[in-house]
């Protein structure tokens, strides 16, 4: 993820402004979007045994677990989602102080499997580029697909998502905030303008 992408998500956890912007998805919308993405993934891939779900920390992991749970219900067997930390592969490491690593957990050998990367917001595409680099060092998947809850545009790399919860056209000065109950006590996606961010800089 790009630097600005980070700050915008982080604002979620650290700046608990009561009403910061326009809510575009509520709890039910997020739930419906994830159910739809689950079915789309299964429909496209048919064989869930050949699938490995990997969330990108932090909120991508929560989403991956929710999709895995829905998939388990549909497929009548337990499917677990993993986590893929991309910190060491980021292209902006030299621009900021060294950051703490998140947990990487790969539930299954990825060689020959279809890996579905899952993240909350797709923005510049740099997070996904880093994730692809990280994947190539873990093995050689048959294919890599990408599922995101929000695609807000402004790509800086030739990357697109296979499964999108909601396309959200934004301007660069706006910020998309994804909140999930696992880390933020509430499920919501909101857009804030530059005036209401309170300086949670990009």
């Amino acid at each position, binding site marked *: *993820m790009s*630097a600005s*992408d*980070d*700050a915008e*998500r*982080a*604002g979620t*956890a*650290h700046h608990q402004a009561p009403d910061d912007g326009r809510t575009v998805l509520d709890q039910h919308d997020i739930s419906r979007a994830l159910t739809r993405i689950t079915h789309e993934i299964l429909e496209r891939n048919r064989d869930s045994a050949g699938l490995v779900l990997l969330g990108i*920390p*932090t*909120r991508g992991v929560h989403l991956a677990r929710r999709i895995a749970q829905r998939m388990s219900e549909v497929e009548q067997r337990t499917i677990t989602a993993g986590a893929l*930390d991309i910190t*060491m*592969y980021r292209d902006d*490491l*030299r*621009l*900021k*102080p*060294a*950051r*703490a*690593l*998140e*947990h*990487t957990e790969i539930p299954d050998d990825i060689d020959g499997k279809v890996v579905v990367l899952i993240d909350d917001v797709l923005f510049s595409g740099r997070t996904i580029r880093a994730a692809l*680099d990280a994947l190539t*060092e*873990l*093995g050689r998947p048959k294919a890599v697909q990408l599922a995101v809850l929000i695609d807000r545009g402004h790509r800086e790399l030739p990357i697109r998502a296979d499964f999108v919860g909601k396309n959200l056209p934004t301007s660069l000065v706006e910020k998309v905030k994804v909140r999930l109950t696992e880390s933020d006590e509430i499920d919501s996606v909101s857009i804030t303008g530059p005036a209401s961010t309170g300086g*949670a800089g990009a």
Partner: protein
Amino acid sequence: MIKNLLSAGDLDRTDAIRILDTAEELLGVASRPIKKLPTLRGRTVVNLFFEDSTRTRISFEAAAKRLSADVINFSAKGSSVSKGESLKDTALTLQAMGADAVIIRHHSSGAPHRLAQARWTKGAVINAGDGTHEHPTQALLDAFTMRRHLVGSTGSDLAGKKITIVGDVLHSRVARSNALLLHTLGAHVTLVAPPTLLPVGVDHWPVETSYDLDASLEDADAVMMLRVQAERMNASYFPSAREYSRRYGLDTARLNRLPDHAIVMHPGPMNRGMEITADVADHVRSVIVEQVTNGVAVRMAVLYLLLGGAAGETEASEEGLS
């Protein structure tokens, strides 16, 4: 995060736990098919070794290479140092070559501090053992190994754990660094040694001392045996090797008196039959080989945290983590 790693005492609890948690994540890299991360690509790390230490040098070299840094090994033997070049001139040469980090092992206590504080190099300075003073990355890897066995969870310290360090404390930089770091992490440290091998001023260390190994075994969570440094035994520190071994060596009988969960550690290289018997060194409760593996992960963590981010910045934006 601090800029240089000169002493285990420079680390506060937050920094120490951060290094241990980072190492925990990096330990998994060793089991991957491709044991490499691109994080320090284009950075140059110099191993500046004025004193022989194959073990520490290759551990740092493996750590730097797994993070894709370029590694230059500088050994004082056969170099200009043996022709009389000073530490300052060596450092200035390395600076001119663009070293981003200097890992220094020196026979004089304080050499890494001199290098860092005189600003002969702009890169990070990491103390890889100076004289009889400190060896902070060894203490970190020891604490890491203890945490994995005795506590088991990331984000935690070693509060309330009882660690017994046995042997030549006087000459041991490992003991000094461990005493400082383990105290920071909340552990209780007991140093056990003959009176002649305890340094002057040890009563100011945050430790207890004892001359009696047997009395310190029953409630120890970990026992760390120190090497008897034959090269420094030029004075009469103890009557005979045999007597030392009987009073301060770890044998099977003493091992059996430890609690069931306790682990046996040694920074290496070991004198089998002197401070530790071969049976104990190879026992299932000995984590000596694991310490070596953990050493690479811990040194990767240190290199990443000192070099991985923007130079010269303090930790400003925790919110950057998502």
